């Protein structure tokens, strides 16, 4: 019993308190204590692996709903069933920075706009789906919508680096492809959560959301 009570801040009084907490919340404390002691690199690598694993589902959109469920119920190591928000955060920051760097005018406006559209948009779409009778969990849905921005990110980075070589129509094609990819990825996860009869009006906001984000990429 005492081996598990490895508290990093070791004053006697603190340890006494930690012991008390451990009795009450044994399982959670075990998990936390295990990860508190490991090197930072391990934690980072584990989180990065988790993000990459989920991204692999985005890259290859699977239209079968059973496979789509795997992403939402992803249980790896000590993960809990809630969707994580690290991936969407990183992706949104990357997108906002990529679009902001290349703009002629103030990059803060673009950064702020993209950030708000992405997070506010995900929240509103999830509430919309809930109100229409879908069986969505708020954070899972925000997580999925965030991860599926990845193809648009790829398009934005591509356009940034190859700016001088790409004419307007080529950009349109790249962005169009990214938009379709994003939409199909997210549909494969989201459609199982939506209400059957109201699918079109649940899905249309997602379509609008990705269209909005993709449109910014054309004009960098």
């Amino acid at each position, binding site marked *: 019993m005492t081996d598990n009570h490895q508290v990093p801040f070791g004053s006697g009084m603190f340890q006494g308190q930690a012991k008390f907490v451990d009795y009450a919340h044994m399982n959670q404390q075990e998990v936390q204590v295990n990860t508190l002691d490991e090197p930072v690199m391990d934690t980072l690598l584990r989180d990065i692996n988790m993000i990459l694993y989920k991204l692999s589902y985005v890259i290859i959109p699977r239209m079968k709903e059973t496979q789509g469920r795997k992403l939402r119920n992803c249980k790896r190591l000590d993960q809990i069933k809630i969707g994580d928000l690290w991936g969407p955060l990183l992706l949104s920051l990357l997108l906002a920075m990529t679009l902001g760097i290349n*703009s002629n005018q103030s990059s803060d406006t673009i950064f702020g706009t993209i950030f708000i559209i992405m997070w506010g948009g995900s929240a509103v779409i999830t509430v*919309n789906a*809930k*109100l229409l009778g879908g069986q969505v969990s708020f954070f899972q849905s925000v997580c999925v919508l965030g991860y599926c921005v990845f193809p648009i990110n790829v398009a934005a980075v591509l356009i940034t680096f190859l700016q001088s070589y790409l004419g307007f129509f080529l950009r349109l094609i790249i962005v169009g492809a990214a938009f379709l990819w994003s939409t199909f990825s997210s549909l494969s996860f989201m459609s199982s959560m939506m209400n059957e009869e109201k699918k079109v*009006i649940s899905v249309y*906001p997602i379509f609008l959301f990705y269209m909005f984000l993709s*449109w*910014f990429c054309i004009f960098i």
Partner: protein
Amino acid sequence: MEFFQEEEEEHPEQKGCCAFLTVQYYQPYFNVSEDDVIDRIKASFLPFRKDFHERVAGNPDLWGPLWISATIIFLITAVANINQMNFEGQTTYSVDYVPQSAALLYCISFGTPVILTIVMKILGSDIRFFHTVCLYGYSMSILMPITILCVLRNSYVQWCLVGYGMISSSSFLIMGMRKILGDLEQAKRYIIVGIVLAMQFSLYLLYKLVFFKVIEKNSTE
């Protein structure tokens, strides 16, 4: 007091002063399918027919106002930036259109019903708030084809489109409120009609002047 009683009848399970802050409060207003929405949008293009009111009668929805305005924000951003492109395809990208159009559209489509409801309650009329919100939301739908057509960079064409939009949406709104207006006295009717027309006029004027300044070929930008 009547306002609260009326709303409580519609939402018997929600009690208390802050019920409108919960998500469940708005559940009854999303009972539409895609066919309903498309029918309502089509009906809003024809202001002098009674289709819209028959369809909406007992079932005002909030999906329409919310997402029609969102679509229009996207279209304004897209089209206004296309208009800004000079002829070599280079553009000074303006992302300010997003917050500006969002503020304009959502203030008009949600703010005006609030003002109208307050004024109507003071004047003693029986108005249902969500019905008015629904009406206003769908009246915006004429802006969708107008915005797409504003890709044409001709000043006269744009002003004609804007003028048509204003006349169409104003008549749609006034026809929609005809029954409520009929219960009021003559003088009070003019107040309400005046408010409606003033808001529509300012919406369309701002829409044209802020988002669609026409750039001449010879000017430098």
